[in-house]
């Protein structure tokens, strides 16, 4: 029998009310995360991936607002919780490692106080010795010296700050961790260290992880499942090996083709054109204006996710007509 999913997102819609009209930064996104699963959510800037991550915890701020959908965390719908219930759920059941850990620590408080705050808020006061032992264990778990507890954020390197934020985020052993570009400002070696730490935390806690990012390389290194967002919509989701080896959506294919490798030198090809403005979406598929395989149905209706292989879904009108994607060549740049 299948265990309950850790997270089930259904038709989530997040909208920003802008001067030029409503912009749907997240447009009817649905996906399910198994317990202990690592989902990589990839998209370019403006694709809605960060908006999506914050909406999972109902941390969306004005001018953004969640206008529809549900986020089931175990048996509870996060969207129906009171503010008080929500505070209890955050950190305990679902925790976030935000983008730019550098700026999410309070610069005037020692690390110890910042970790204590998190635990106090959920479990009340603990005996001093117990708290100290717990903080030491949390820091050790992310590969830091327990002495870091008595330091201030400015005394730590970028990698150490990111680990500290990871220790805080996992202080209550959440079942779901949302990590938003946790390594974006870090060097390649530190990035690898931080990702390995996140991987160890994840397997130690048995938590499910949503890793938000723009680097397909990181996703290939970390994720079990990869979801691709484009203009607020989830356009493809599937097992990592298939997503990279045999993607079905033309956007995913072109994104992968644009990645430089270190095996052979080749002509670098990007994707011509730009993503649409969210306030001025084209009719039908949002990728149609840039798609080399566009046809009449693409502008007629918005494609929905359909199953293209086991656990693999793509929102593209080519399916079910096609079994696999033919090789693509991009049109000459405008």
């Amino acid at each position, binding site marked *: 029998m299948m265990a309950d999913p850790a997270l089930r997102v259904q038709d989530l819609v997040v909208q920003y009310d802008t001067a030029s009209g409503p912009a749907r930064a997240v447009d009817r996104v649905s996906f399910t995360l198994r317990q202990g699963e690592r989902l990589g959510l990839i998209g370019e800037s403006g694709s809605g991936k960060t908006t999506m991550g914050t909406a999972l915890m109902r941390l969306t701020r004005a001018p953004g607002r969640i206008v529809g959908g549900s986020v089931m965390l175990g048996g509870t719908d996060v969207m129906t919780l009171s503010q008080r219930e929500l505070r209890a759920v955050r950190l305990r059941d679902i925790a976030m490692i935000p983008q730019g850990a550098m700026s999410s620590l309070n610069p005037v408080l020692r690390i110890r106080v910042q970790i204590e705050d998190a635990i106090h808020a959920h479990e009340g006061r603990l005996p001093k010795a117990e708290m100290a032992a717990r903080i030491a264990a949390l820091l050790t778990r992310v590969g830091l010296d327990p002495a870091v507890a008595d330091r201030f954020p400015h005394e730590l390197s970028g990698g150490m700050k990111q680990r500290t934020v990871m220790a805080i985020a996992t202080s209550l052993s959440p079942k779901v961790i949302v990590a938003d570009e946790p390594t974006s400002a870090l060097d390649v070696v530190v990035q690898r260290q931080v990702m*390995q730490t996140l991987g160890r935390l994840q397997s130690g806690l048995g938590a499910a992880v949503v890793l938000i990012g*723009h680097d397909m390389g990181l996703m290939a290194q970390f994720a079990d499942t990869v979801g691709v967002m484009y203009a607020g919509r989830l356009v493809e989701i599937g097992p990592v090996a298939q997503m990279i080896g045999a993607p079905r959506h033309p956007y995913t294919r072109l994104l992968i083709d644009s990645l430089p490798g270190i095996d052979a030198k080749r002509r670098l090809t990007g994707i011509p054109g730009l993503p649409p403005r969210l306030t001025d979406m084209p009719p039908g598929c949002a990728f149609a204006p840039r798609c080399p395989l566009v046809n009449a149905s693409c502008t007629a209706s918005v494609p929905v996710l359909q199953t293209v292989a086991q656990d693999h879904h793509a929102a593209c009108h080519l399916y079910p007509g096609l079994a696999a994607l033919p090789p693509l060549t991009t049109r000459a740049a405008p």
Partner: protein
Amino acid sequence: MTPPLIELRGVLQTYGAFTALDRLQMTLPDTAAMLAIAGESGSGKTTLARIMLGFIQPTEGQVLYRGRDIATMSRAERFTFGREVQPIFQDPFNVFNPFYRVDHVLKTPLRKFGLASTQAEAQRIIEDALSRVGLRPKDTLGRFPHELSGGQRQRIMVARAVLLRPRLIIADEPVSMVDASLRATILDEIRDLNRDLGIAFVYITHDLTTAFQLCDDIVVLYQGRVAEAGAVENVIGAPQHPYSRLLVSSIPLPDPSRRWGDDDLQADPAQSARTSAGCRFAPRCPQAMDRCWSTDPAMTRPLQHRVMACHLDASAPLEGTDIVSAFSEPDRARSAPPRGQQGTKA
């Protein structure tokens, strides 16, 4: 014999007690080279870019541009240097003044260097530069910076550099803030500029993958010193220095069948300040030996087209330490076009 395009002679840059660049010796031949300078934050790569651009005067040592020390250039020479050596910066958001249309950043340098005698000629030069970086002049000119995407703004900065017909462009992380689908396009355009116009590039980056795709040669810096240098196929394809090996093995390859090993990495680089007179990399090196802590390794040539500073290579130290001339043997002729057409266009 033509003097090198850029020559660094014992360039030392210190900030208080911190040494950003430690007596760097290096030449860039005047052959439209594509050279990558790679390293982590703190390696000195941005300091090196600023010194080569003449933005900062090194604490010690000299920088020569086509045989002339840039510190003692005459006004006229300095003016020419300012046109022929162009920067492209990382952040395509901060370099624009939001109150001016983008035309401003294109027209100002043309006027400053007197490269166009009429409005029509200025327009033609600008339109040519924009088309070379894949921008449609009519969709770009007359716009304000906020109306353009990050990728478009960065392409305008490339166009700005190109319209001055430089000999050398020093690009400091030009695509690290640009989305993946555009990154490849911009790098490809840079390669075209190198091939079609004979512009040399120094590409400063922490990303070895794009360095491999774009450049011929690479210099890997570690804490202000050269760790390893050579042809990209060698240094990235088969790194010898433990630091280059660490960098290459940390690349997140987009291939789930080639994942990082689970080996524990050495200490946080930020905590690995040099503690002895030995090799700077010793505190992080998995292969550190006794003498790595006592003696700074000299530059050797373990293989053709390759130099490195590591005690693992037992070959004799090189005479002098001009690393680029050490691996650019004359047999590696480059297929760069002659530079003749350049001057006439400018």
